[in-house]
């Protein structure tokens, strides 16, 4: 028995070793790995997470000490209500603090704080905020707030680790599992189906992180976008009947609305949206070409849009100001798929847009394609060679532009902006 075990291990060891050396970063469920390697990887990840969590504990105590020290070293502002710490004192405190705290406040951050505070090169340490809106309103320090944020991120990171393939990235499905396992149970009023909700939330997260058709995202991106924090605050707000936070896409209410919209469109009830069904999207305000292009640029199944792609579309419309949305719209409007938006394409899009103008629209609103195209060209500062994706994203008018060319309501909004 033991001999066989050892033999197997020997063979395993031989087979493993090169691969272990080659692939330093462990990945859990790689097909190329055998069970042993996978177990080993899991173990390493577990250890990593353990180390991480202990360091978080340490960090918490450190921050507590640091903040306490900070609170004894402050000056008051003129009115006496605000408290500031000067850079000199801050530095004095920091020199005595452990490394982790020093890392928390790099020079760049401190500079930003100073600039925000805008008071005698000091940092406004008071921050009237609320970690948990329902408990009590604390007067917090910027630094404290920051520490909380970082701790939150760190804890989330540790929670995410079991779901990630290695310690740097996480796949969409794992993230869905994570959301379903961690956040959905927290809700007082659970969504209709946990998997739908998680797909919805993850869809939006992936979209905003500009990873729409990617399988994995970096944990760094996920954490730094603080979307999970927003998710939590949404859940929190709904659980306690508080006012909705600024970013309320993750609320069950929003989710339900999206799901409802999807179902309304899905007239044949096959769970996906065909092009014919999509024509009724948003009362037909979106022009046919744009809707057609959505099918071209999305992951489709049997030439139908599934819920995830639909969520992408919703996110693109809702977060029109983001980079991801600009990219989405660029892809949709790039009819030739050549990565360049040129005049022809704008003209085509504009002509399709002009068709959407409903009958009840007053006559004076009738648009002349040439004029509209010229206007749009000006808006984008279109060059002869067209506009690449990067240029388009950097253009600050891109959101207006995409709205103008995709749906009637935005089109009208722009047309009547001067009225």
């Amino acid at each position, binding site marked *: 028995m033991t001999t066989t075990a050892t033999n197997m291990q020997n063979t395993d060891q031989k087979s493993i070793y090169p691969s272990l050396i080659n692939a330093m970063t462990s990945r859990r469920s790689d097909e190329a790995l055998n069970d042993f390697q996978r177990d*080993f990887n899991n173990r390493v990840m577990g250890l990593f997470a353990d*180390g991480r969590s202990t360091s978080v504990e340490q960090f918490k105590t450190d921050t507590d000490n640091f903040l306490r020290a900070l609170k004894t070293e402050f000056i008051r502002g003129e009115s006496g209500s605000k408290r500031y710490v000067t850079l000199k004192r801050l530095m004095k405190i920091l020199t005595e603090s452990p490394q982790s705290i*020093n890392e928390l406040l790099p020079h760049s951050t401190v500079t930003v704080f100073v600039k925000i505070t805008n008071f005698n090169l000091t940092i406004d340490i008071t921050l009237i905020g609320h970690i948990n809106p329902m408990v009590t309103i604390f007067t917090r320090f910027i630094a404290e707030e920051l520490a909380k944020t970082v701790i939150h991120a760190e804890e989330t990171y540790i929670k995410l680790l079991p779901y990630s393939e290695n310690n740097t990235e996480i796949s969409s499905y794992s993230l869905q599992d994570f959301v379903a396992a961690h956040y959905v149970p927290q809700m*007082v009023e659970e969504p209709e189906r946990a998997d739908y909700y998680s797909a919805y939330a993850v869809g939006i997260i992936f979209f905003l992180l500009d990873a729409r058709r990617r*399988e994995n995202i970096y944990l760094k991106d996920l954490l730094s976008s603080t979307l999970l924090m927003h998710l939590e*605050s949404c859940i929190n707000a709904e659980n306690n009947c508080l006012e909705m936070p600024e970013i309320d896409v993750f609320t069950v209410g929003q989710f339900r609305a999206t799901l409802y919209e999807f179902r309304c469109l899905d007239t044949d009830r096959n769970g996906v949206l065909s092009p014919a069904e999509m024509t009724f999207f948003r009362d037909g305000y979106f022009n046919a070409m744009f809707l057609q292009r959505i099918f071209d640029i999305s992951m489709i199944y049997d030439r139908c849009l599934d819920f995830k792609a639909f969520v992408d579309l919703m996110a693109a419309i809702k977060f029109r100001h983001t980079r991801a949305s600009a990219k989405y719209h660029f892809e949709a409007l790039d009819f030739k798929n050549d990565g360049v938006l040129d005049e022809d394409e704008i003209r085509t899009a504009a002509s399709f847009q002009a068709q959407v103008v409903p009958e009840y629209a007053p006559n004076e609103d009738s648009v002349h394609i040439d004029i509209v195209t010229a206007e749009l060209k000006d808006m984008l500062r279109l060059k002869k060679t067209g506009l690449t994706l990067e240029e388009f994203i950097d253009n600050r008018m891109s959101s207006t532009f995409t709205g103008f060319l995709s749906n009637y309501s935005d089109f009208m909004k722009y047309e009547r902006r001067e009225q």
Partner: protein
Amino acid sequence: MSKIPISKTGFRSWLSANEGRESKGVLYEQKYQSHHDRIRKKENMSENERPSSSSYASLINPSPTAEDYERYDADRRIRGKARDIRVAQRSASSSARNSLSMTPEPNETSPTNDQYFTPKRESGGGSQDEEFVTPSTSKKDLRKSRRMSESGSAEVTPVSTKPPRIRKNEKTSDEQAYYTNCLSRKMEENFSKMKDLVFSGHSMQEAREKVLSDTIVDTSKCSRSPRRSSRITSRSDVIVDRSSSQPPPMETLNAVPRFPRAKSPVISCSKETTILRTSYVDTLVAAHQMHMQYADRTVVTVEQQMTKLESMKNLAALSPAVQEAKRKRNAAEALRKLVETNEQREKKLEVISDLKDRIGKITNVQFSTHQLVSNRPFAGDPENEKLLKSLDGWVSLPFHEFDVQTARELQSLQKKMLVTINRFKNVASLHRRNPMNRSFGTSRKSIAMKIVPSDFATAGTYSDSHSLNSASHPNTREVSTQVTARLAETAMTQTSPRRVGVEPLDLSSLEKINSSSQTTPPTAPTIVPVTLSTEDFAQQTQQTEEFVVPHSNPPAVSTSTLSMTAATTLDIDEMLESIDLRNESLETLDSFTHFKSDISYPPMSSTLSADSTPRSERVSLDPESARRLSAGVSHFLEKIKKENESFEKENEDEEEKRTAEVEEIPVSDSAAVVVPSIDSNVPKVENISEESSETQSPPLNDESEVELNVDEHDITPFEHEMEEQEEQRRLRESALTPTPPRKRTEETVTDEYRRYIDPDDEEDETKKFLNNDEFERSLEEDQFDPRGADDSADDSGFLLNNKPLLPLKSIFDTGTLSPSTSPGLQTDTPRGPDEVNETTIGNLDMEDYCQKEYLVEIGPVMVQKAIEFQSELRGQNWVSSPNIWKPPSLEQIQLDLYDQFDYFDSYSILLWGAIVDLINAKYLKFGRKLNKSEEDMFEKEALEMLQKEYGPESKKKEWSKEVNMSKKLAGMMPLDLDYRFDVRRGLADNEKQKYQWQQIQMTVIADRYPRKKLKDELDVVYNTEKENLGQIVMERELEDVSFSNNRESQPEAGQSDSDQKMIGVSNV
């Protein structure tokens, strides 16, 4: 097409209508007909054309109703006749069939018609002749009619829809001979007739008449044997009108048939007569031509026959040799076949291996696609597997069969290959644009997220469906109802504290109190009575109570305990907070909705937003200390220069010399770096002031009034506007009339001050200052409030505060000039040192000073220092870098100013930190010293950066740009606040703050999780674990060796700990 039109009224009516006429149907011999058809077909059809089966396939005959049948059946007497007609029609149709009528009458082909009109005909293919013979009629009848008509099996059997095959059966040499005989006889007849006619010598008219009469005779003949005439006409027609290669014109396409073959022979004959009548010669010529052609053809065939015969003969002659050869050949053939089969086998194997190869490739592509898409093990394509298995069996197939099979498979594989490669391309492009992303095969298959339709999603408004939705799932419904009840409750309780907090009157009054307290001397915050803190305490506990309520519905007992604990657990933070003014907590209630994004800013008026710290709150130095500061800074700089010089000169221990060298080494040499900058600055400043004086000179008279008012300004001394006005006014005054204010200051400034402003000796100066009681006094007054200096200083000092740049600069100049005594500078500044000193007596605005002057001075020095200490600075941050080189601070300058003025120190720290950051980030990458060009680059960039970030320009930058976020992070910002994307909308301050806070959060977190760092961390764990594992494995091996004898008993103990270590391994 050539059907007897069946009138709706029935056969009898038709008969009655057509009784008198001659019958259209002609019964001529089927064999002739078929023969004729065949010939025609040969002539008129192109090779691959097949006679249209349309007439066969047409099932279109309107199905006879019972009425029809009755009518028909009732008149049995005319049945025979009808059959005749039908037969005639059929034969006609068969001939018509051969004329390739592709487009039959629409009602014939349309399948829908068929569908609706003849529902029960099983195939109905050839049931033309059964249209009147209903199924009810006896089979005998049917057979009889069949026999009678002798139409052949083609018409009767519905299955055989191909006429040519049938006709083939019919053609016999007998018929052919008969026909040719007939034809030739006829031609001869015609020819002779023609000859007669030619030789008869009749005139044209006569000839015509004769021919006519002949034709009449012929017609009568024709009526007797119609086939002959019809034959001729058709024949002639064919030859004259068409080239034989062309298909016959479709008769049905032409509205008027060229010749009504299907009609009665009478009509055809009459038509023929008309033709003859018009040009009999034509006919004759045509006949002649035909004859000739025929003759030619026969000759050809005969010749062919002859050659064939001849060759046969030749062959027969050679037969024995041939036999021999044949035998030999056969033997060789057999041998070759054997060889060939071997070759074929090889070829087959080759092909098979090729096929297998292809399959393998496809599988590979499929596998990689699968890896991209799915997490599950790759099952493979079942089709390919099957093919792979069966391929080996194909070797035994005959070569031809094998060839066909493999070709087919090859083709399909090719197609499949293309498809799979395409799919792979798609998947790959969809999956990762980013080559860095390496996690292949880790993902699950992407599955469409199909939404199960809710039962009632289709109807109603959203709110309807919403409620319905929750209703649909019984458990969730319960939950939701419960929840709503609970939530409603909490909402109720929720509002109460908020209402309490919001109470507008209280808040405003408090605010007013607070704001009024701003004007009162700022003793309030420090002398907050204890009672207030306890009050605050109480309030806080109350608050906690109120907020706890929503959490724990049940009774007040628990809440009270909670509040108690909350109260007891209040630690230093809360104590500190409770010292704060009361209204702070109330204020926060307003901003309740914000998500930890409210950074409370110091109050600043909108007019000053461009500026930095509000003027009233700015740190400023009284004139005296300002002067000393600038002097100290200059001294400090000199010291640095000296150090540098000494550092360069003699690489000895600098620290020892530092103190000594201050006095020893003349400053004039070392001040090279500083002096030019001063040089450039001084005249500029003067110019500016002069310019401003010129432009502002006119409104002098008006200002005098203001001046009067300003004398009474003590009433509202802290109004920003007033102060600024005043400042401006004074600026103008001082610029306009340089002497009067100076004189005034001379009068007002106390003599003590003037005493200190002795530029000759710095060290002395600072010492004097330190000892000076009066200065101490002024500093003490400064302690609580910078503005206190205004009050404490005499009126003149106050009036002179916030002097423009000029005096500050000149302070500085005096400081630097005095030791160096550079002549150029002195000439530049026309005023005497005394004058200069007098103008300096104004409060020094630290911010202005630092940004505009100190930065210029210290920047290059810092850069120089950074270059000097570059190796030490590697990896240092702003906190640790002062250990390496301490930027100037007030203590260092030996100005023991009060701690309040941390501004200067902070500024130095900030600048130094920025430089250290920059050099670390951009220049100290490669672990070597910077070379000259790099140093220059760094110097340039650093100075630029300092100017931009910390100089006076820094205030002009847009708020959003102040946070240097990466593009990526900025793009992720979920808040729709970035004004860059919505230029038209002005954003409120708190929105901006929110945005900034969000940005900070993002950057800080992003800094904490760089990919490389995480990977390195993991690698450390990984490697240690690997080492552990290796050790364990080694140990075990050793154990194995040592305990090889008693394996069973011992190893448990030895392995126990290693087993524990190897949790992951144990599964194996």
